[in-house]
């Protein structure tokens, strides 16, 4: 072992250096920066002044931040529970290889390669109060009474923004489907011999075996919920009356007004909440798995 280390140490250092430099610049330095500056009063220009946890306390006393925090939890729940449940449902159906399942798999994933920005702009058109597809559709089917300014109405804005992300189940559906299809056929054959119904097979064979991948998917989906930014920024910009505000957007607003202390306190809160939620879920389900697909 030491022999090898001596033999190639120059090469190893040379090869590790670039990756360590980039990681240091874009992960370690920002992490230290966020937590350090979150304890300071700073506008980015003048001297920093240490003020302890004041920025965090201010944030939690700020009704807009509390609204954003609550909305982030609603996002995390909608993606982590509702979207994953729908993705798992479709995955279990496709795993039984109905006619055209391969085509369906490819089609369901298609929206996931389109940018969230373009998707959000598309839904902006659909929700448009004056000539959007949704209101027109309601009128056609005789539900004209339900017509509303979907993104301008305090009670419908958040559900409307969340809806256009939740329905695109392709990403998690593909992951869960792959895990389901890797279960040996013989398990099901044996169960069928014993007279198990389809429902019982899914309940007692499939679900226990794909639990790990479902937990991983939930973890990722919750992380996405905490990172929510694009859809909200483009569709409502946090409005109406902050009804759709999320922490990421609030951070961006604070940064724009050079309030770096409060902005980084939001960043620090996001990182901590993410870590707590993710480790909590893993402990709850007793799973320790690599999150291969995690990405920003």
């Amino acid at each position, binding site marked *: 072992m030491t022999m090898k280390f001596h033999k190639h140490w120059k090469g190893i250092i040379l*090869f590790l250096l*670039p990756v360590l430099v980039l*990681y240091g610049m874009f992960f370690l330095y*920002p992490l230290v920066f966020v937590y350090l500056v979150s304890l300071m009063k700073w506008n980015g220009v003048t001297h920093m002044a240490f003020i302890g946890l004041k920025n965090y306390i201010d944030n939690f006393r700020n009704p807009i931040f509390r609204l954003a925090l609550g909305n982030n939890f609603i996002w995390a729940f909608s993606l982590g529970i509702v979207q994953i449940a729908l993705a798992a449902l*479709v995955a279990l159906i496709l795993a039984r*290889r109905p006619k055209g399942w391969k085509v369906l798999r490819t089609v369901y994933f298609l929206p996931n390669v389109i*940018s969230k920005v373009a998707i959000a702009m598309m839904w902006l058109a659909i929700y448009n109060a004056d*000539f959007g597809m949704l209101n027109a559709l309601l009128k056609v089917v005789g539900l004209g009474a339900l017509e509303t300014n979907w993104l301008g109405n305090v009670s419908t804005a958040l559900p409307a923004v969340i809806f256009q992300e939740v329905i695109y189940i392709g990403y998690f559906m593909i992951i869960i489907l792959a*895990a389901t299809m890797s279960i040996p056929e013989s398990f099901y054959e044996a169960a069928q011999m014993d007279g198990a119904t389809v429902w019982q097979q899914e309940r007692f064979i499939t679900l226990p075996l794909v639990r790990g991948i479902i937990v991983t998917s939930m973890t990722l989906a919750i992380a996405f919920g905490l990172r929510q930014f694009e859809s909200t920024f483009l569709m409502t910009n946090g409005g109406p009356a902050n009804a759709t505000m999320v922490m990421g957007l609030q951070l961006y607003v604070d940064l724009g007004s050079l309030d770096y202390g409060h902005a980084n306190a939001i960043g620090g809160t996001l990182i901590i909440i993410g*870590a707590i939620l993710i480790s909590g879920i893993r402990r709850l389900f007793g799973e320790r798995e690599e999150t291969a697909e995690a990405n920003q």
Partner: protein
Amino acid sequence: MRAGLDPVGRRLGVTDVIAKILKWSVLVLFLLLTFLPLLYLVISSFKTNLALQVRPFSLPVVWQVSNYVEAVKISSLPLLFLHSIIISTLATALNLLVTTMGAFALSRERFRFQNVILNLILAGVLVPIIAFMVPYFKLISAMKIYDTIWGLIITYASINVPISLYLIHGFMGSIPVELEEAGIMDGCSFWQRYAKIILPLSRLGLVTAGTFVFLFAWNEFIYALLLTSSLRARTLQLGIQFFKSQFITDYTSMYAAITLTIIPSIAVYIFFHERIIKGLTSGAVKG
């Protein structure tokens, strides 16, 4: 057999029929949710603004190709498109260069702190990078590459270091030692072992990781918004948000512009969907 229902003419029970109906309802529902909005967008993009309001669901009477001409003229799409291609390509190249070198050292050699380094970097996968807006802004400004394509290139390459390293390290780790030993016998140096033996054998891993990074860079919005301020380095995704102010009330031309930004993604997906789906699922099946 996991077909669930017996296809050979056996009478299906009532519950079977209900199950079948439910199953296909779910599948069709998601098919509609996937296609209808896209279809609405594309068809609307060929209409006049008047027709959009008066007959929202009918096909255009005259297909307004002029909307597309207008879209390209107003939105400077070709320039944005060029920026996006350059940034995504270079970010992917930089990311792959750096992570393949790192993964090579971490998977084909043994040294102290090896696992510490690996796990430290992989932990980055879980960090919500949106929390890093202020430090990234400061870092890029300090490097004097604010509002340049280089700022976005290095940011996109770096953000994806953990995921790429994870995928490529896993791939390189599974290459048999014997293949490399043959090279050592032939007198390959450290560099040659990387460039001539391990790298070519990791081709598929590179394609998977590269697809990830490219798609990320192509679709990224937050840091494009934060780290650029003018047309000089504006990407396609960032450009889309300006459509709202550029087209004002010319909605159908705006839909044409949005359609144009979606087409490349769909085209790439049509050609590479098997590769993309395989890349997504390779991690899942291992788990």
